[in-house]
């Protein structure tokens, strides 16, 4: 033992001894002090052993998983630790974070610990790191608000984005017009904008000069495109109380069947008016049941232990998943599973053909190019209005490819997308050049 340490211990011991002597009889104090010391040492050993076990179990579970935990559905690749030595040599400042992230992704208790943390946040404080938990358990993705505010908060950025979007839409419209096809634009309001009354007080306010609104005002005045005011259609359905449920999922950002049913007829009606023919009658629905909606990215972002599957009221006579009926039949890509984006697909993930006997009173064939917000129109029966529907998904295929692959006879090109990401949606239009 070093002299310094000795001195400290001696001083402490002397101090303790003097206190003991004045407080209690010498023998009793000595016995108590000894018992106390043994007890303290045992507690110390127990504590160190407990922590050591905690760390050991963590690393053992990482190396040789003993318990199987349901992995989190994050839809991202795990962090890769590539070129470690090269990056070390050039002092990559991100390397420590990458190293940490690489191990974190492999950590054996990652999934249950994340779920446990999220569960505590949700149960104790009714909050989540990635979602606003609104009235009636309506979930709103936080990133959406930050994204919209970032895009709209600065007037120059707003003007630039607006200019780009309108230019690209104009290019597309010119391109299609030269082929005798009319552009139909259907921007769907985002849930966080439409159901503002359900937002908690901690949610940010969307800007008054909101990029989608700015674009909308201009598009409404364009005479050579068909602009479908989805927001007005949804409001009308809400006011008329025709829907049997909310128009959006609580646990997902998308429109549900009822939202699609509110907008679908407006789309068909606008096209019918343009084609100067009567709108085919919309399918009638009756007898409802609760359908467990399996997706729900908002609930996925909550990352809880239990399933947050939402049971949504839907009519019994809608077809899952995209089954043939006496009205028409589906030609589906083998990888097409309904609502999940595919990694690889043909340009058209499905083509719906109306049966010949009904063709005479249907609207002309159309292409629907859209994001996942276009999915539920198939459930609501939009396809029954047209002679044929060619569906292409924007995160699988660039617009130029789709436009070039369109079959003969297409008369309308529908853009259906989440208005909140209008800028991201429109950027692929960069590729659309002048007609050769």
């Amino acid at each position, binding site marked *: 033992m070093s002299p310094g340490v000795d001195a400290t211990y001696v001083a402490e011991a002397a101090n303790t001894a003097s206190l003991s002597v004045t407080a209690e009889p010498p023998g009793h104090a000595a016995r108590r002090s000894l018992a106390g010391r043994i007890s303290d*040492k045992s*507690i110390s050993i127990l504590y160190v052993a*407990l922590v050591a076990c905690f760390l050991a179990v963590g*690393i053992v579970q990482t190396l040789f998983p003993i318990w199987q935990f349901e992995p989190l559905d994050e*839809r991202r690749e795990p962090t890769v630790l590539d070129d470690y030595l090269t990056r070390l040599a050039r002092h990559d400042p991100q390397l420590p974070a990458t190293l*940490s992230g690489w191990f974190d992704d492999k950590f054996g208790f990652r999934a249950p*610990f994340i779920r446990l943390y999220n569960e505590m946040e949700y149960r104790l*404080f009714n909050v989540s*790191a*990635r979602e606003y938990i609104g009235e009636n358990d309506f979930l709103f993705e936080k990133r959406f608000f930050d994204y919209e505010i970032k895009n709209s908060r600065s007037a120059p950025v707003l003007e630039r984005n607006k200019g780009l979007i309108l230019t690209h839409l104009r290019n597309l419209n010119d391109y299609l017009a030269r082929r005798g096809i009319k552009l139909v634009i259907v921007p769907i309001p985002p849930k966080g904008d439409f159901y503002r009354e359900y937002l908690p007080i901690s949610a940010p306010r969307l800007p008054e000069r909101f990029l989608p609104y700015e674009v909308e005002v201009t598009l409404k005045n364009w005479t050579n495109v068909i602009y479908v005011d989805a927001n007005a259609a949804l409001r009308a359905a809400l006011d008329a109380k025709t829907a049997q449920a909310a128009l959006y999922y609580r646990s997902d950002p998308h429109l549900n069947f009822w939202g699609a049913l509110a907008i679908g007829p407006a789309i068909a009606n606008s096209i019918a008016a343009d084609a100067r023919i009567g709108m085919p009658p919309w399918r009638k629905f009756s007898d409802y049941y609760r359908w467990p909606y399996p997706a729900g990215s908002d609930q996925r972002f909550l990352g809880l232990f239990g399933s947050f599957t939402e049971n949504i009221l839907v009519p019994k006579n809608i077809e899952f998943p995209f089954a043939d009926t006496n009205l028409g039949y589906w030609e589906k890509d083998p990888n097409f599973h309904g609502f999940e984006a595919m990694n690889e697909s043909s340009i058209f993930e499905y083509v719906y053909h109306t049966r010949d006997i009904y063709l005479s009173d249907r609207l002309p064939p159309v292409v629907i190019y859209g994001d996942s917000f276009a999915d539920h129109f198939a459930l609501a029966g939009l396809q029954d209005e047209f002679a044929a529907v060619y569906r292409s998904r924007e995160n699988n295929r660039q617009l130029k490819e789709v436009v070039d692959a369109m079959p003969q006879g297409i008369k309308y090109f529908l853009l259906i997308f989440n208005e909140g990401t209008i800028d991201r949606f429109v950027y692929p239009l960069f590729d659309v050049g002048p007609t050769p």
Partner: protein
Amino acid sequence: MVFSSNIFLFVFLPSFLLLYVPTPRRYKNHLLLLANLLFYALGTGTYVLLLAISVIANYVFARIILQLADRWKTYFFWLSVVFNLSFLVYYKYRAFLLGISDSALHFFGVDIPVTAPELVLPLGISFFTFQAISYLADVYLEQVEPTKSLVDFGTYHSLFPQLLAGPIVRYSEVAAQVVTRNLTWEGAAEGTYRFTLGLGKKLLIANPIGSVSEAIFSLPQAELGFVVAWLGAFSYGLQAYYDFAGYSDMAIGLGRILGFKLPENFNQPFRAQSITEFWRRWHITLFRWFRDYVFIPLGGSRPSVRSYFALVFVFVLCGLWHGPTPNFVIWGAYQGVLMAIERYVAIRYGRVQRGIWAMPLTFGLTVLGFAFIRCSDLSFGWHYLSVMVGISRPEVVYYPIWYYLEADKQFVYAVAIFFAWFPVERLSALGTAGGVRLAVKYASAFVVMALSVISLSASSFNPFIYFRF
């Protein structure tokens, strides 16, 4: 690699301890030195050579200073200080100094475009440079005898628990422990407890509050309102405290596990009733370094006009040490001027006025300074202060105050405020028998550790909507 990471907690630390504990006493320092260099290399790569050069050079410098006498000794001491500072200046202050010279030349109508290539700052360079200077100064002043063993010196100079962020340890404080130290269960338990306390401060308090200050200081100027600006400054103050004090706790705890008793670095600084007291409670080892090696040699301890200038000068240096930006320099000057005023009042009127307002006033002045250094540049710094004093108002507000204060954050703030201001020494008076109290203390610490690791995992949760985005 930081202490508050899973890879440190579950891989580096246990692996090292498994080797360290059974290693015979005479080889412990060899192993520790290797671990220090490995720890540094894992985060900074070949900069570990810089650390190795620093170890060898300062070991040699100290031995030479010991051999020399009088004038040569002094020359050599200053040469060794310049050697140490040259690395710091090159890596940390080069761009700042080039900027100043560029501005000065521009002022005189000379435009010579000079661009400094971007360099990554070697981690902890400010700390190990100051520690080396303190060692050399103590040897020069014959306050400590330099060690004969390069391994022992290397162990002290590159000790991984305090290598990256302090505390700045004087050699005399650990000289005996560097040579020989005992590993005990009690020491291991106390060290683990202290480490856990630091881990909790960092992960459960500093990080959540840091996310608030990050969000507020990222706001455009036009969206910054009075209440939000104060919340940002307050949050940054708490974040800085819990982050840094947490790191110091972890360093002290790790040191204790290894058998070292490292000096304390924080003592509830927000309870200070004056700026002078604040600096006796905040980053204690740095303030002590400046006091012993700059302020006193400049004659600052003697009551004279010179001492006021020395005070301001020392704090300008202190500001520069924290960061090579104009904001830090001004902040340092601000601290120095405040302390000079307090010193004048103390000398003129006998003592600094204390009372019910002393603590909030000190905290308010401190927070103003913190807000200024958190701003990205001077222009934003002035604007931020103007909002805090009510001169500027926001043009538009998108993020309401409740955006920053969701229920979980409110809870964290409550805990943070309690432990920042409540006299924690009273907590140790609670409870009954010593054994029970110890058991409760360690059980609580274990819960804190579990919660910290859980929150560490949660911070890696990063879901996406689609694969491709």
